[in-house]
């Protein structure tokens, strides 16, 4: 009996001990004190967050974290990346282990409302798809009745998969892995006929992880909406605002034509009021966020605007080669639309 009690106490202590680290409202202070932003990222997803053999992190989600660090601390290298599995991510954010979670995470009602986190925006509009071996003779997801599907646990992917097959009145057999690597290697070993995740992920897997990219194909159907974005802990509105507006500034910079190359020129010479406000040449946008006037200038100067990040990591300049699609600026028919910085 005594043992049981200690066991329970120890477990509760494990949770609370972690939860006690951060208190509402002090994320900014602890970041400044520490001098770095702690950022939860994917353990390895090409294009979004992946570490090379020297331990340098790259990717769209990684670049967002660097932009936050540039805006807040002043240097885009002042980021501690914490690789998290799909399962660990929310607990890590809730407990204060990371300041920002930027890990291709889908914004859903349940997550936003009942997990103690806030989504700070959307940095990638994605949708779930299927990948099959090219020689399987399947052209459409509607032909997948009865297939075995490899999937990673703890994701919206798992739920969309069930929803889709239920809606289509088809059956399937899930083979669920905790690890991304394990689920992939099972698929490549032929354990399942189908692999499913977000389409950007499929593109990354096909071009980077597959033994031979031509042996696999991505089916045309997109079975879900996956708005991916960074999130922060609840209860710290100041930090939430910073996380949100750094992302907005990156998107606005692209719309206003500010790039990492022309930014100094724009700052010195532009008469555009929006550009001047974004770059801190006029107005007090930084002050309102509790930052200095050049917060957005540093983020854009060091990391580039949203479009540059996209092209570099997942777009045409990257192995993934994704076109902008939904992620284009609203002026180009996409969904990227920055609320006014004023």
């Amino acid at each position, binding site marked *: 009996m005594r043992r049981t009690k200690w066991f329970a106490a120890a477990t509760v202590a494990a949770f609370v001990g972690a939860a006690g680290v951060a208190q509402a409202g002090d994320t900014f202070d602890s970041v400044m004190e520490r001098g770095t932003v702690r950022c939860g990222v994917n353990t390895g997803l090409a294009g979004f967050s992946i570490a090379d053999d020297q331990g340098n992190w790259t990717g769209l989600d990684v670049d967002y974290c660097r932009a936050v660090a540039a805006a807040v601390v002043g240097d885009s290298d002042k980021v501690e990346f914490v690789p998290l599995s799909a399962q660990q991510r929310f607990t890590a954010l809730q407990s204060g282990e990371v300041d920002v979670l930027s890990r291709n995470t889908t914004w859903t009602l349940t997550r936003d409302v009942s997990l103690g986190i806030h989504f700070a925006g959307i940095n990638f509009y994605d949708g779930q798809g299927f990948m099959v071996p090219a020689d399987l003779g399947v052209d459409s997801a509607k032909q997948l009745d009865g297939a075995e599907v490899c999937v990673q646990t703890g994701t919206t992917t798992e739920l969309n998969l069930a929803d889709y097959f239920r809606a289509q009145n088809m059956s399937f057999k899930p083979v669920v892995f905790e690890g991304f690597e394990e689920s992939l290697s099972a698929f490549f070993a*032929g354990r399942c006929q189908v692999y499913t995740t977000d389409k950007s992920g499929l593109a990354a897997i096909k071009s980077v992880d597959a033994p031979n990219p031509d042996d696999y194909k991505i089916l045309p159907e997109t079975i879900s909406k996956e708005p991916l974005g960074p999130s922060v802990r609840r209860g710290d509105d100041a930090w939430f605002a910073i996380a949100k507006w750094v992302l907005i500034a990156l998107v606005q910079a692209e719309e206003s034509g500010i790039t990492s190359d022309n930014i100094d020129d724009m700052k010195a010479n532009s008469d555009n009021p929006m550009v001047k406000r974004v770059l801190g040449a006029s107005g007090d946008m930084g002050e309102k966020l509790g930052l200095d006037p050049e917060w957005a200038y540093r983020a854009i100067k060091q990391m580039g605007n949203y479009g540059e990040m996209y092209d570099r990591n997942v777009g045409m300049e990257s192995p993934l080669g994704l076109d902008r699609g939904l992620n284009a600026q609203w002026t180009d028919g996409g969904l990227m639309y920055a609320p006014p910085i004023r």
Partner: protein
Amino acid sequence: MAEQVARKAGDSAAPPRREAGAFLRDPRVRAVLYQILVLGGVILLVAYLVSNTMDNLEERSIRTGFGFLSNEAGFYIGETTFVAYEASDSYGQAFVVGLLNTLRVALLGIVLSTIIGAIVGIARLSSNWLIAKLASVYVEVMRNIPLLLQLFFWYGAISFLLPSVRDAITVIPGVFLSKSGLQYAVPVSHPIHPWMGLAFLAAIAACVVYYKWAKRHQAETGREPNLLLPSLGMLIGLPALVWLAGGAPTQMDVPELATFRYVGGTSVTPEFLALLLGLTFYTAGFIAEIVRSGIVAVAWGQTEAASAIGLSRTLVLRLVLLPQALRIIVPPTTSQYLNLTKNSSLAVAIGYPDLVSVGNTTLNQTGQAIECISIMMACYLTISLSISFFMNWYNKHIALVER
């Protein structure tokens, strides 16, 4: 320790308060007081931790409580044991499926590892040099490689060595082996099947009665009746008779290759197979050592004395060595059973939907980490305590009865 503390407390007390010190030195008071203090401390600590947790959860508006268990789960589970499960069922039902999957692999693993462990343990003592060495190699290899690696090994071996579904190996007609596992034919469900099960249970009961009668008969007459043949006859014969009486249904549900995999019959998935093999062979290595040490621990004189009164080698093992060795073997074997059950949670690594796998998925979908972890811990605690309880009962049963 407590005594020292008490004495110090007494020493430091000022002279006018000697009575208080005397009170503290009273053995009867001491016996109770310190236990109350410790218990109170533990309760306070737990209360503080729980209330702190609740406050933190509240502050971040993280949902709490077990109400989510009746919500629709929305995800599928790859394999189920005994109960049917759909994505439209509740989280609670999903937990039950996970628990049953854990129990299935744990029970089978315990039975198989005991058998293999006993064989290997006895083989290590064999007078045949080759058999003894092979058994030693087995024990050393299995015990000294981490279980997780062994699981990856078995899973990898199954995934890579077996052909894809379309080129499945037909082991015997109706039994197919491929990357998707072992798919085999089973008799089509028939009303007679439950009755056959009942007949089998009746046969077991009859065997017990027969065994007791045989013992008595031997005690009275000195002649030992044949045990094996009548038992086998009853165990096979009774269900067979019922089957014949039910019209001898022979229709089989044979798996057939559909677009992607075999449909029909029953399957053993590679995940289950890899987990079972890994757990069984790993734990058998430990059990083998326990069995060997148990047998070696029985004094050599026992064997000599038994041989001296003319018992054969088999009888020496069965009547003299094993009953005494069992008393040494059972307690450590119990902890191996507990280990095996707990180790089955490594299933998540190779995709077997056990309790932890289902629990983790639920945890992720609902975000209610504390509740999900508590449920998992409560389940493992219950399973482990049940195993302990049973094994302790068995241990008492075989313990030396002093007269």
